[in-house]
C-alpha cells in the first residue's frame, strides 16, 4: 500500500514545535496585550492545529481531494460563525 512514511525526525520535530507553542500561548496569555490577546491565542491554536493536520494526519502527503475536504470543514465552520455574527455584531 502506497502510504507516505514520514521519518521519525519529522514527528519529533513537530512534537517539539507543538510543545513550544503551548508554552508560548500560556506565556502570551499573561502579557497585557489588550485586544490582541485573543487573536494571538487563536492564531497560535490555528498554527498548532495546522501542524497536526499536515504532519501527524499526513494531510500534506494526501490527495487533493483530502485537502479539499479539510478546507471544506473549516470553510463551513467560518460560515456558521461569520454569518451568525452579521446578526450579533450589528
Amino acid at each position, binding site marked *: 500500500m502506497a502510504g507516505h512514511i514520514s521519518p521519525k525526525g519529522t514527528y519529533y520535530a513537530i512534537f517539539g514545535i507543538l510543545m513550544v507553542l503551548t508554552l508560548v500561548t500560556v506565556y502570551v496569555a499573561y502579557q497585557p496585550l489588550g485586544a490582541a490577546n485573543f487573536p494571538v491565542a487563536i492564531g497560535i491554536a490555528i498554527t498548532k492545529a495546522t501542524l497536526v493536520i499536515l504532519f501527524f494526519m499526513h494531510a500534506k502527503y494526501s490527495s487533493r481531494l483530502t485537502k479539499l475536504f479539510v478546507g*471544506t*470543514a473549516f470553510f*463551513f465552520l467560518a*460560515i*456558521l460563525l461569520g*454569518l*451568525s455574527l*452579521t*446578526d450579533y455584531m*450589528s
Partner: protein
Amino acid sequence: MDTTVTAPRVTYLNHEHTLASWLLTKDHKRIGILYMIVVTFAFFLGGIFASLIRLELTTPAGDLLSADTYNKMFTMHGVAMVFFVLIPAVPAILGNFVLPLMLGAKDVAFPKLNLISWYLFTIGFLFTVYALVAGGVDTGWTFYTPYSSRASNTNVMATGLGVFITGFSSILTGLNFMVTIHRMRAPGLTWFRLPLFVWAVYSTALVMILGTPVIAITVLALAIERFLHFGIFDAALGGDPVLFQHMFWFYSHPAVYIMILPPMGAISEVIAAFSRKSIFGYAFVAFSSLAIAIFGFLVWAHHMFVSGISVYSALVFSFLTYAVAIPSAVKTFNWAATMYRGAIWLKAPMIWAIGFLGLFLVGGLTGLFTAALGVDVHLHDTYFVVAHFHYIMVGGAIMGYFAGLHFWWPKITGRMYSDIWAKVAAIIVFTGFNLTFGPQFIVGYLGMPRRYYAYPEEFQVLNVLSSAGASILGLGYTLIAIYLVASLFKGERVGANPWHATGLEWTTQSPPLPHNFEKQPVVTEDAYEYTKREIKVV
C-alpha cells in the same frame, strides 16, 4: 411489454428468505427496502396527524381536539414528515437502491455502516413513536427555546433523542454515499458521465455531512438545558433564546435542500428517460445541484426576519436567499427545455414528474414572497408559509419521490403496476393537493397565523376547502398504496429495461442479482445518449 418475460432465477429478493437475511443484510438494495417500510409507516402516521389537523380546522371553534392535543398533532406531524419521511425518502430509499447500480458498483462503500444507519434511523423513529405513545410532544417541529427548554412539559427529551439518533443515521448515509461516488465508479464512468441523480445525491450527502452535526449539537444542548438545567439559551441568565434559532436553522434550512435535491435528481432521470433525449444543459443541471447545496448554507436566517435579528443581518440573508433561488430556476428551465423536440412517452412516471414541475414552481416562487423582507414581516408564521412549504415539500418533494418510485418500481420488484391507475392517482393527488394548499395562501395573506387550533370565523370557508382537498389527497395516496401492493402479486413481469432507458441500472436484470451485475460494467458514453445508439429492447 408484448412478450411475456420469465422471472430471473436468482435475484436479490429470493436468494435468501429468512427474516435474519433481511434484518442483517448488507445488500444496499434490501436496505433500501427496509427504509421504504419504515418511511411508509411514518408517512401514514404523519398523514393521520394531518387528517386530524384538517378535521379540527373545519370549524373555527376548537371542538374536536383539545388545544394541547392539537399542538401535539402538528408537532408530531412536522417531526414525522420532516425527519422520518422526507429527509430519508429519496436518498435513503431510492438512493440506496439505485446509486450503486448507477455507478456499476457491487455495493456502497461501507455496507455494514449502511445497515447500522438503518438501525439508527429505526431506533430514532422508535424513540419518537415512544414519545408519541407516552403523551406526545408539543413544541412544534422547530423546538424553539425557551418554550422547549423551560415551558413545555411534554416528551421533548425523547423526541429530541429520536432526532439526534436519526441525525447520525443521516450523517453516516451521507458519508457512505459520498465515498461511494468518489471511489466506486465503474471503469469509464467519469464525473461528467454520471446520471444527474448521482450529482443530486452527492450534493445532498454534502449537506448531510456539513449540516446535520449542527442540529445534533443543538438538540443535545437543548436536552442538557432541559434536563440538567444548564443555561445556554436561558434569558434569565443573560443567554439568548434566539441563538437557538440560528443554530437550528443553520441545519434546517439546508435540510430543506436535503429534501428537494434528491427528488430533483429523480426528476432529471424521469424527464430524460421519457423525453428520450439527453438532458438540456447537463453541466448546468449538475452544478446547480452543488450550488444549491453550498449556497443553501448561507440563507438560514430568512426564517428569522421578525425574530429580532438585526436589520443589517436581515438584508444580507434576504439577498443571499434570492441568490440561491437562481440555481433552482436554472434547473426548472432546463427540465422544460429538455422536453423540447423530445419523443415524449407519457407513462405514469412522466405524469408524476410533470405534476412535480407544476407544484414545485408554485412552492419555489412563493418562497420569493417570504424571502422579500417587507412582505415576510406580514407573512411570517401565517398560513402563507404553511402553503409555501407544503407546495414545495408535498407537491414538490413527495411528488418527485413518487415519480422516482414509479420509475424504478419495476427495477425494484421486477413487476409493473397498472399504468392507468397510476395516472389516475397522480391526477387525484394533484387536484386534491391544490385544493388543500391553494386556499392557504389566501387565508395566510388574510392573516391567519399557523399553529392555531381555533380561528376567527371569517377564515372558515377557506379552511373547509382545504380540509376537503385533504381528503381527496388522502384518497389519492391510499390509491397508490393499493395498486403498488397489488402489482407485487399481479403485476406483469418486466425485463431488464421496461422503459428503454439509459443508465447502468437498466442493464442488469429486474430485480437485480444479489451482487448487481453479472460482470463488471464498463462505460463508454455519456449519460442519456438516447439518440446515439439503438436502445436494446429486452
